């Protein structure tokens, strides 16, 4: 597509929109979940209120904490927001499309996680250590899964560069080859895992038996907590976006005009919220798994993407 100033602006704007929208999606998820559990539940905008509230609050920092503890949330947020800048949301264009590809996004997520875990360890709290060690284990397994999924995708769509990838995806007429299907399965598992939803983790509880991510950030408060929460929901949305744009690239704007972009945006919103609801529904169906059964699930993801690769070659 011909790149003019408007496109650039749009491209930039979509990332900002993504960042801005992410709490809303989280809110939708919670709402749906509450509904399915016969609760009224908080409004879908509750996450925004929380973040703003938290930002206004004073920080309480453990006396054990070092500069790393204070530093970590910022790195975390910066990494995730940066990766948000790299992906096309509702038009197949990103101003930074040449800056990096999916692998870079993995890397940035890794960076974010690295610092979060360290932050969890820093305060010498038993909870932090617990969360960190579990997160270590999960991340060590999720990263290979994600990489393999990307491997499959790049085989199918001939790129790891996101824009190219989505572009070729949207140009394909029949999208569902077996290989892609398997990729989709593993991608979905990964999205759930990364989002720290059930059956992996239960973001709603603060019991050491059930929680992974929440335990890690237990010591954070105020602005930093806000950042972490926000970055978490951004991350979820990024993964969602990737999933829907790669596996269901219908209606995404290929050219810049009012209607295409409008349609693109609308479709994106619909797809995103639908997927979010889907996840929420699933979450209500399953219970939290035992920590050491989770690797099995991730293994399923890995296996399916391997099968996808094999299917591609055969």
């Amino acid at each position, binding site marked *: 597509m011909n790149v003019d100033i408007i496109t650039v602006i749009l491209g930039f704007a979509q990332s900002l929109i993504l960042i801005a929208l992410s709490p809303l999606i989280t809110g939708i998820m919670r709402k749906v979940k509450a509904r399915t559990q016969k609760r009224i539940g908080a409004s879908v905008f509750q996450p925004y209120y929380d973040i*703003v509230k938290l930002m206004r609050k004073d920080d309480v920092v453990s006396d054990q904490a070092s500069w790393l503890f204070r530093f970590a949330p910022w790195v975390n*947020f910066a990494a995730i927001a940066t990766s948000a800048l790299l992906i096309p949301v509702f038009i197949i264009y990103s101003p*930074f499309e040449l800056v990096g590809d999916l692998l*870079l996004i993995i890397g940035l997520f890794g960076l974010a996680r690295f610092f979060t875990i360290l932050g969890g360890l820093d305060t010498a709290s*038993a909870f932090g250590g617990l969360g960190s060690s579990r997160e270590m284990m999960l991340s060590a*397994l999720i*990263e290979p899964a994600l990489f393999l999924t990307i491997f499959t995708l790049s085989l199918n769509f001939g*790129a790891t560069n996101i824009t190219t990838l989505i572009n070729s995806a949207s140009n394909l007429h029949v999208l569902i080859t077996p290989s892609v299907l398997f990729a989709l399965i593993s991608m979905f598992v990964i999205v759930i895992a990364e989002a720290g939803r059930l059956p992996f983790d239960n973001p709603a509880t603060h019991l050491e038996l059930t929680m992974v991510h929440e335990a890690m950030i237990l010591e954070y408060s105020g602005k930093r907590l806000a950042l972490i929460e926000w970055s978490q929901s951004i991350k979820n949305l990024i993964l969602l976006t990737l999933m829907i744009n790669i596996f269901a690239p219908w209606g995404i704007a290929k050219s810049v005009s009012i209607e295409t972009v409008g349609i693109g945006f609308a479709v994106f919103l619909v797809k995103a919220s639908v997927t979010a609801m889907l996840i929420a529904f699933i979450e209500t169906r399953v219970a939290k798994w035992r920590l050491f059964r989770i690797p099995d699930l991730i293994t399923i993801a890995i296996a399916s993407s391997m099968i996808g690769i094999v299917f591609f070659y055969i």
Partner: protein
Amino acid sequence: MIASILAIILSISVISNGEPLRASLLGNIPTLFDLPIYVDGVSAFFIFILGLISFAVSLYSIGYSKHYAVKNGTSVLGFLFNFFILSILLVVTSNSVFSFLLFWETMALTSFLLVIYEHEHESNLKSGMTYIVMTHFGTAFILASFLILYIQTGSFSFDVFRQAASSTPMLIKDIVFILAFIGFGTKAGIVPFHIWLPQAHPSAPSNASALMSAVMIKTAIYGLVRFIFDYGGLGPSMDFAWWGLLLLSVGAVSSVVGVLYAVVEKDIKRALAFSSIENIGIILIGLGLSVIFAAFNLPSLSILALVASMYHTLNHAVFKSLLFMCAGSIDYTIHTKNMESMGGLIRKMPWTALLFLIGALSISGLPPLNGFISEWLTMQALLSTPYIMNTNLQILIAFTSLAFALTAGVGAATFVKIFGVSFLSKSRSELALNAVEVPRTMLAGKGVIAFTAVILGILPFIGINLITSAFNLKSFSPNNYFGYISLSNTSGGNFASLNPLIVLLLLVSVAACFYVFVRIVGKATSERAFTTWDCGFGGLNARMEYSATSLSQPLRKVFKFFYKPRNKITREVYAESNPYLRRKVKIDSTTRNLFEELLYEPVISACIFLFDKIRMIQTGKVNAYLLYIMITLVLLLIFVRLTP
């Protein structure tokens, strides 16, 4: 140290004017073998690594060797250290079989002496023995491979090998390659010949282990490269494919095994040593890919893979030396290598902590540091498998990439653990409590390396162009140092691209913007310190926090099949009547080293059994001795009688 600077200059000069440099060490002294010097781009590249690292490490050693000054003079250490550097230098520059082996063995010897430098501890002697015997074993294979080439060409000179490379029959090449691979592999620490590495590196003084891990094991890579590309005469022919396959699979296995052992290790230097095995594995993966691509006549991809591999060689040299030096600094100030008794060091020695963090980030392959670049390149190489027209190979490489991805993931976990346990949270022992920051020279040494790591991270073309010109490959990338690394796919579209510099800028700017944003939304807020939340029990102490063992416990459980962990649980109960009311529960969880248990011990014990039988001929009875003579004589006589 000055020598190292000279080395850098030399190598740069050689690389810049691709003209190989020749000299003879002994001029015209008549020896049966003179010791010719030959420096082309490849050697120069490795000399550059050597020079860079040894410069920093020597800087570091100035302070570090005080650590030993109290015990016995540092002169010996210094001498060995410099001699070690010299021998490495001569290894990568020597141009004939004899001189190569001469300096190769000298290198092994000096490093061995460095390993057992603290010979007061029996354990060091033991690990030193393992090391020297293993490396000698490797040398034997190298010797054999060289000699086969010698028979083939009738000369000891590498030049002749180069010329003869094309004419050598494939079978010979295969044999030579196998022998050389085992030989150099032993030095590089590939599985299953790796067992010396985690023993030797921790025993050596840290400046030495930094050099060993960063440079010495790279000489093995150097040897492999020489054998494959120079004497192997690698060409676009399917015959070479299985070489690449071998390198690839061994690399994959090594990386996984190495990282899995690294993550559960308690001794910081052992963990680093294991991670060296892992990184060697990654390097080999790159190398293998490059060979395979070359075999399938895909030059550009082959170049990509080679660059990836060599770039990782360079990077590993950089961050591994950095990490070893930091570990050395910890050892220097708190005199222990056991992570269980560290902790909280970030407050005691902030600079070391920062430098270690940089090292950890880059070795975990996280942007925007150098480790990420080389891993990114390797991944791209792995992703280019569709071009190989062989389904089995493709699928096998896919599995390799699984191993690679696993390695990357667990590798990150490893260094999270190491950094977290040793630097963060409460100090776990008195030693750690009274730690102090190390002297300036040591920090300087580490700083240089850390700076290099960052530069290589954000401006990858410095490294890439260095490599491409050193190996005089046609560069696949623009020459301005700020360009994008970009690869195009079959349909000419952009396959993948990366520009770490901009990534860094984005990171910083985003952080800045949102800092402002957050300050605007949530006004200025104050911050107060309070004790960590202890569920109201009060008084969290160091014994309550997660230890190195417990951090890696989930992983140990996940990879149970590999570690075969033995958990020894000892309980003290208040009263036998009620076993649930316990005074103390002690859990001792040890992981078994499969290779030593299943591979080495049986072989060794079998040999010793056999030898024990053989040596029994020395009965001490003079009659028996006479009998031997008689038998020998009669047998020989009959032999002659029967063979006219």
